């Protein structure tokens, strides 16, 4: 499973799940599952999230 810090970075930039979802082109539920560690994103989504959260993929995601 992949660990992620999406929630932490989202809070840092004061973004709601809905806003982040809209920016990366997914539904809010996907962000919810992602933050709960119940969904592994595609490389495309991981890169999109890293870009929106102004960080790199390796800082945002790591192997559990």
């Amino acid at each position, binding site marked *: 499973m992949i660990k992620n810090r999406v929630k932490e970075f989202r809070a840092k930039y004061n973004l709601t799940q809905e806003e982040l979802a*809209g920016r990366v*082109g*997914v*539904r809010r*539920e*996907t962000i919810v599952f992602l933050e709960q560690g119940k969904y592994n994103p*595609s490389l*495309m989504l991981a890169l999109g999230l890293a870009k929106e959260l102004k960080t790199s993929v390796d800082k945002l995601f790591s192997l559990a």
Partner: protein
Amino acid sequence: MTEKQLRFIRVLVAAILAVIVSQALIRNNFILGAISVVIASLILLILRKRVKEVVADERDYKIAGDTARWTLSIFAIGGWLFSFALITMREVKPGYEIAGFTLSYAICALLLINMVVGLFFRRMDDTFPKRKRIAYFVFAFFIALLLVIAGTRLLSGEDDWICKDGKWIEHGSPSAAMPTEPCP
């Protein structure tokens, strides 16, 4: 339009379509049924384009893929067992044999379509233009449909007992014995 509104309209369209198609089938008006399906599909397609929110994303596609794979396996294995049971019971009622073979052909057709669509997607890479991909898909779909129709037409067992003027008449060479029940 929001995704929630689209979902509500989808259910509404499906309910109306079910009523129209069932009535069309009862009245043997197949054209009305076919036209209503096409119109409903077009309405939903146009409405979907008007939704600004994301209607489906990569997680939905992944779930849809897993669901399709499991559904296909359950239908193929379950259907095969059920059709086998129906065919073995042909002595009880000749109609069972027809039902069994129809189910078998339906499973074969589904697996054939799955194979063709699978081959198609394996050949397409992510850089392939979306419009071309849809055009190729529609072409492949019609080829598969033609093959299924041709296969069904060529392989379907038309050998059966037909009731005519109160008598059972052989049509072709049915494998089952003449039905014991009286011909209505």
